[in-house]
């Protein structure tokens, strides 16, 4: 394949990664924005989403459903289950720590191992696939100068699948919905009020503890949804949370902790550049550059590249 089509392929793969990353990171960012705590177990909720998608489709297959019905059931049930688990963890653990930032980090590290190892025990050490609801191969055209001037042709290997395009569209729709929910709905208003001043919100009769449980659950559900979307492309494995967590940390920090718009921009930036840098350099070098960049951003520009300094 020539360079141009090759780059386009890398960008398409990058866009799929960016879509999933944006969903996952916006969950992390939502939790940090409203509750001011870092959820280290976020990657495990993503893994749990993928694993639950496998469990639900397995169960539905027993009932004789087709791939599309199974997948819709997984996309609805897995985030619900994972969100409930997370909300329960918030009530049982985080609430008792009074959301002290450092103790929450330690507790969520513990939660990370509990979820990961429970998945190892219940689901097993093997990666397992989920069938995509639809998966037509779509060949993509490319233009080049030929004998008769500008020609359009279909280079061998330049293709994507309808499912990958669906993932990108789905992520855009969900994120737009989340944005509308936060800015236009009453529940979103309550969340933003809690974010600005928890004590004042309590004084105005907002049940802050319940808001926290819902936000923590919703953040985990977003990660789980990202897991459900990725699992037909990349099988479900009990260790898949680690890399995903690191990447979403990177995205959230570059975008500015707690800023939803910044998170989405950063996800696109990181997803695309990860795809493209990996074409030119080895993936390990790309990761070294990304992690060092994040550390330096935090040191020299703690509000993130796109965030504004608060206060």
């Amino acid at each position: 394949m020539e360079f141009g089509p090759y780059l386009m392929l890398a960008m398409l793969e990058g866009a799929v990664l960016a879509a999933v990353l944006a969903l996952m990171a916006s969950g992390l960012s939502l939790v940090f924005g409203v509750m001011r705590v870092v959820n280290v177990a976020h990657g495990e909720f993503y893994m749990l989403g993928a694993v639950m998608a496998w469990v639900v489709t397995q169960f539905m297959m027993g009932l004789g459903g087709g791939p599309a019905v199974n997948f819709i059931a997984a996309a609805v049930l897995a985030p619900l289950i994972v969100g409930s688990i997370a909300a329960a963890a918030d009530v049982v653990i985080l609430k008792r720590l009074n959301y002290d930032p450092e103790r929450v980090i330690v507790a969520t590290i513990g939660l990370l191992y509990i979820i990961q190892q429970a998945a190892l025990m219940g689901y097993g050490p093997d990666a397992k696939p989920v069938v995509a609801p639809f998966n037509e191969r779509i060949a993509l055209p490319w233009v080049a100068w030929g004998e008769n001037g500008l020609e359009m042709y279909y280079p061998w290997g330049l293709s994507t699948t309808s499912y990958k395009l669906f993932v990108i569209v789905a992520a855009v729709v969900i994120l737009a919905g989340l944005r509308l929910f936060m800015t236009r709905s009453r529940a979103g208003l309550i969340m933003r009020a809690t974010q600005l001043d928890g004590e004042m919100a309590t004084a105005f009769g907002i049940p802050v503890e319940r808001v926290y449980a819902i936000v923590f659950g919703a953040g985990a559900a977003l990660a789980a949804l990202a897991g459900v979307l990725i699992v037909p492309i990349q099988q479900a494995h009990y260790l898949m949370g680690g890399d995903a967590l690191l990447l979403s940390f990177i995205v959230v920090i570059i975008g500015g902790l707690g800023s939803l718009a910044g998170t989405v921009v950063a996800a696109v930036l990181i997803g695309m550049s990860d795809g493209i840098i990996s074409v030119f350099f080895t993936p390990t070098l790309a990761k070294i550059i990304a992690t060092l960049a994040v550390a330096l951003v935090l040191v020299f520009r703690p509000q993130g590249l796109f965030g504004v300094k608060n206060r």
Partner: protein
Amino acid sequence: MTRRDLTSHLGLIAGLFALHFILPAYHHGVFARVMVLAVYAIGYNIAFGYTGLLSLGHAMFFGAGMYGVGIASYHFAIPALPAWIIGLGCGALLALVVGLLALRTEGVSFMIVTLMFAQAAYLVILYFSEYTRGDDGLVIPGDMRAIGSWDLSDEGTRYLLAWALFSIALMLSLWLVRHPFGRVLVALRENEERARLLGYDTGGRKLAALVISGTISAAAGGAYATMFGYVGASFAGVQYSIFALLWVLLGGAGTVLGPFVGVLFMTYLNDVASGVTEAYMLIAGVVLVLLTLFAPQGIVGEIRRRFWKDLP
């Protein structure tokens, strides 16, 4: 240092020496490993327990010591003792560089910055697999694992050397926290602003604490490499940073004896758990959650709170 401090800590050291002659072979080996890892935890405790720096990247200092020794003895045939000093230097230098950058942040940001630096260090080890042999790791040649006539692959010598290293690190950390310098570190942990108001150079002290902490961790990493003859990338991974946090929290952050108690408990707990299930890390997770919920002081911290108010 009061007489009571000295007797209790020297008592532990004497007890561990006596165990050398008593312990059955299997536990003898376990204790040697526990003592070396306790040195790593003692190093972590100086940053986290005494100065209040929540680092999630100490595995990079442990790894720096380990790979300093590993590369020196594997590629350059440098004998054990000079190689260990090189490992110490690597750890101190890395801690200085990381400290200069990371200490510009605090709290949660400091944790993420150290995590990212450690991840970058881990990936660097994998990237230069020509020298580090990546995931496979280096096996240190037998003739490099000797100091003079002491053969470190011999179990008795290994135990005694681990014991000596542990004793030095334990007494050093006891001396440090009783020294005015150590008291300032505690003041930084409790209220940094007030310490600054009293005229202490808080930035310099934190950097010094991190360099001391990183150097001790590197000393443990280097010793681990020569004693057990293996240098692997997994020792520099995020899991080993979390282990340090877990050990210190379990034993008691900000106590001199805590790191050893934490490592000992966790090692035997893992030993029992891995006999039952392959998901033995589940125990580590449960312990972490229970500790933060019910015993943030850890084992030795609880003893201090209830029975022995001035335990260091």
